[in-house]
């Protein structure tokens, strides 16, 4: 009898604590990344390959998203992954694509949103410190561009929204807390 009461008290106090805790520091469990792909005035347009990742000051990288031609016959689309050059050097060449849940087909002109689940294991285990959110686009018969957005990890909601803009292959990029 006593034991049940005690464990109930323990349970409820932990529950209460966790609510307080989450209100204070774990304010965000989702990061929203809006990426704008510019409309190109070109004769031959192919939707670009895009990689998004987090990178620390030692070039250690964590995958956030990858858009490429993942449905081509004989995996032909993988042939051009090396052209997302900085990403290929840091992540692509040492990992298996597609990444579960992070990979999707290429996207055309317009705004595209990515929701990053901050509670996912591979993000929660990231050591705190200074990072860059890097967005790299590489277009067939076109150009390449990388946009870097410096940020602190773990994320502090007061720092957001963050924004940056590409000049050729990428448009405006906005990072906000959901």
């Amino acid at each position, binding site marked *: 009898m006593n034991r049940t009461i005690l464990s109930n008290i323990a349970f409820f106090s932990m529950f209460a604590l966790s609510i307080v805790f989450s209100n204070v520091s774990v304010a965000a469990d989702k990061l929203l990344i809006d990426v704008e792909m510019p409309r190109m005035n070109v004769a031959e347009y192919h939707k670009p390959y895009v990689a998004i990742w987090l990178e620390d000051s030692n070039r250690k990288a964590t995958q956030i998203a990858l858009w490429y031609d993942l449905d081509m016959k004989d*995996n032909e*689309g*993988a*042939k051009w992954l*090396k052209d997302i050059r*900085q990403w290929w*050097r840091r992540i692509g*060449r040492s990992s298996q694509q597609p990444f579960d849940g992070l990979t999707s087909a290429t996207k055309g002109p317009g705004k595209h949103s990515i929701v990053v689940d901050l509670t996912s294991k591979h993000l929660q285990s990231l050591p705190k410190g200074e990072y860059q959110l890097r967005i790299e686009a590489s277009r067939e018969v076109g150009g390449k561009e990388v946009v870097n957005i410096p940020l602190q990890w773990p994320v502090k909601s007061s720092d957001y929204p963050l924004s940056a803009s590409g000049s050729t292959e990428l448009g405006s990029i906005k990072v906000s807390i959901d």
Partner: protein
Amino acid sequence: MNISTPIKALLSITMVMGLCFNASAHRAWILPSTTNLSGDAPWVTFDAAVSNSLFVPEHVPLRMKGLMVQDPNGKSIDVANPHTGKYRSTFDLNLLTPGTYKIGYASGGLRASWKDKDGKRKRWPGRGETANDADFEKAVPKKADSLKVSQSFRRLETYVTSGEPTTKVFEATNSGLELVPVTHPNDLFAGESAKFQFLFEGEPAVGVKLAIVKGDTRFRNDQNQLDLVTDAKGYVSITWPEAGVYLIEAEFEDDKAQAPATIRTGSYGATFAVYPQ
């Protein structure tokens, strides 16, 4: 450099035969269509030639004979579609195994040059001949005017990588002048510094002279050659000024040869691609 035309022709022919290597007159190179690849079992195509202008085939082809390819496991594999044309050889490689491949030529042994009684310049092995050290006694006089006997080694390489770069193909053979990477040759970027060690006959090669030139020389007036020398442990660091394909030529010489040779020489040439940031 002033070299008479007949000597130049002789130099280039011996280079083609893989007997001797002279960096100053013409340049030998193997140029991959790309150095870093992704996807399943990608293909690369190569040009191999000796030329003045980089990387323009305009003089003589490098022959397919003697070309060796090592896969990422160090296993010797065959090229596909070899062809030797007027100015270049071409061949393809299917990268079935992920990792780094080495493509190149390596040769070495005794060489001799002298003047005969009539003052005519002689060399052994002669034009188009393959050196065989056992023939040395018969072929080369014991005494002659300007007799120079050397142990000479020549190496010409390039590297391509499917997926992640690996290092098995860089295990030293301890023969001639070799490059041991600290920085992987398929991981070079403009503005970054790359470090390599040179070995000669398995020992750190001190004072190796390097000449590094970016391709497309015909579209600029200055060669913009980088001249570097290896340090006391055989190391050299190269900071790549800009993206492009570079030819690296390295020369080593010392007097620690075994008789009958009096000098040892080693040359190393390689094509490296440097990517933009």
